[in-house]
Every structure is written in structure tokens, then in C-alpha cells.
């Protein structure tokens, strides 16, 4: 599959690396050239040498999205550090580019829940952390 990852911080770069290792075609878009180094380090070799693609640009730039290959993408992952950026760019991927699978990382549980109801698939790390912390704390308390 062709996987496009927008936002290559800790989460995005690890997801991109995992997808590349799993044999997928992976393209990464990030505004910070430094995030390219993170990919190299995560992978233990040069990102492009291993077959990865990298584009410098911001998430809402149509030119950057096109250059990163959004037209061919089967999977679109929005993992920038901005909830609103992720929610907006995910909807663009869905509605303008008809990407079949779109997932957005959203830190705010309420925004994540409401947009999920509207048909945007969201992953909320905060909610996951809350549930695990509560579970861990209750286990400790028992």
C-alpha cells in the first residue's frame, strides 16, 4: 500500500518507519527538515536508501500534498503536533482526494470524539493514557 504520513514527530516517524519495514511504500511530509534525520535514526539507515520518500512542506499546502503523492495514497495519517491541523487536513484527504483510509491523531478527547461521530477516524492518545492510568492506579490501589 501507499502510506502518506503528514507530521513526522515522535509518533509520525515511528509509524512511517514501521510501515516501511512492513513493506509498504511510505511518503512523509513535514515542514521541518530535522524530522528527516529522525527518520534516518529510527530506521538505522538512510530513509531514501531504504525506499522512503520525504517532502518538506506544511500540511495545508496543496502543492506539498501533491508532491508527497496524496493522489496515489491508500492510507493517510495526520500526525502533526496540531489537533486542528490534523482534523482539517484529514478532511481534505477524505473529501478532495478520496483517500480510502484516513486516520487523524487528536490529543483533545472531546474533539476526537465529536469528529469521529462526523466520520473522521481519530486516535486520541490522551484518552488511551487516561484509561491506562486509571486502570494502573486502580490496580495499584487494590
Amino acid at each position: 500500500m501507499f502510506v502518506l504520513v503528514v507530521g513526522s514527530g515522535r509518533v509520525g516517524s515511528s509509524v512511517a518507519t514501521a510501515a516501511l519495514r512492513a513493506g509498504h511504500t511510505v511518503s512523509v511530509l513535514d515542514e521541518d527538515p530535522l524530522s528527516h534525520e529522525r527518520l534516518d535514526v529510527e530506521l538505522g539507515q538512510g530513509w531514501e536508501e531504504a525506499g522512503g520518500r520525504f517532502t518538506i512542506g506544511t500540511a495545508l499546502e496543496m502543492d506539498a500534498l501533491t508532491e508527497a503523492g496524496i493522489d496515489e495514497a491508500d492510507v493517510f495519517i495526520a500526525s502533526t503536533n496540531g489537533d486542528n491541523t490534523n482534523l482539517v487536513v484529514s478532511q481534505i484527504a477524505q473529501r478532495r482526494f478520496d483517500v480510502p483510509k484516513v486516520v487523524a491523531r487528536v490529543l483533545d478527547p472531546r474533539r476526537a470524539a465529536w469528529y469521529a461521530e462526523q466520520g473522521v477516524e481519530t486516535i486520541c492518545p490522551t484518552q488511551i493514557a487516561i484509561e491506562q492510568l486509571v486502570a494502573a492506579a486502580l490496580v495499584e490501589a487494590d
Partner: protein
Amino acid sequence: MAGLYVIIAGAGKVGWNLARELIDKGHEVTVIEQDRRRYLTVEQELEHAVQYGDATELWVLERAGIQRADLVVAVTGDDEDNLLICQVAKEKYLCERIIARVNNPRNLEHFKLLGIQPAVSATDLILRLIEHEVPRYGLVHLLDLPEERLEIIELVVSDTAPAAGRRVLELELPEGALVISVLRNGSGFVPKADTVVESGDEVLVVLDPGLEDAITAQFVADGDLEE
């Protein structure tokens, strides 16, 4: 238009001045500002009419009373925030009227895609004004009706343009464009199919938006642009 309840997201220069004007006109206003220092500055004047918080957080919007808002205006410096605030106001809280500020005019299409209208871009407005004042390639926008998808432009026919010396029916205009008037020697007339277009004529063309380039290519020759 008396007695509206207006929520303004962002207490920058636009948001603050907008709040002042609306309060002066007798409307009820709540401004939401997420920068603590800015909030404290604005609060000295607007007092209870400004609240501290991130307007993209649902609870902050609810605290401001978005359920009863007649109008939500998102004028922060961040287009994603403005888009999201308006989308939530419209689709979650069913607010009937929204107005969004677009900071980067390239993002206008995203607002349109997600149904956030009207979206106002100061940069775009100024660009259009400049286009009117300083016609580039001899092209002036006389009328823009984006909702109706209709425009009228004015062009000066250049010396070596494909259209110069041709009859109207021979013009290679795209589908959706029509020459409605020709101005020659200070007077205008409605051309017929066999009217010959001359260089130096000012032609008015009605068109579907987006056809400007194809039309310009007929009336203004490439070589004539360089001058």
C-alpha cells in the same frame, strides 16, 4: 439587526476592534482569547466581554454560551483554528451564521471545501483591489459574483493578439465565455457575430470563473505582455 449575541474567537486587532464596534451598536459580545497576556490587556477595556481560553476547545465555546450565539466570528491568526471553530459552531452547535477569517489566501479553497462561508481574506481583498487599480495584462475584473459563478472582465486587445482582426464568431473562446460589449474610440456597442475585433478595442467578456487565462490568451499576445 439589533440585539445579536456574537462570539468572536481571537482578540487580535481584528477581533478587538470588531468587538468594540459591535458593542457600540448594542450587540452582546463575548471575545475568546487564548494568549494570557493579550487577554489581560483586552480585559482592561472589554471586562466581562472577553474570556480566557482556547476557542477550539468545545468546553470553552460552551462556557461562552455558543448554544445561544446568533453569530460566530473566527478571526484568530491561525487558519486551521478558524476553520475548526466555524465547523464546530455550524455543525455541532447549529449556529446559523458564521464568518471566518482566512489569513493565507491559499487556504480559501479549504474553507470552501468544508463549507465554511463566508470566509474573508484581507490579503485576497487587497490583491483584488490592486488588480482593479493596476490591471495586469490589461485585464480588469469588473464584476465578481462567486455565488452565482459569474464574472465580467475587461481586456484591451493587443496588437498581435489572436483576436485582433478576427470576427467575433471566429474567436477561439472557451465554452462559458461571451463577448458582451466592445468599446472603441470612446463609445461602446454590443458586437454581432460578424463584428471585427480590432487591436486597441476594450472588450467586456462575461465568463464562468476560472476561464481568465484562456480568454486573456486570445486578446493579449504573449509578446505584448513583456512591455
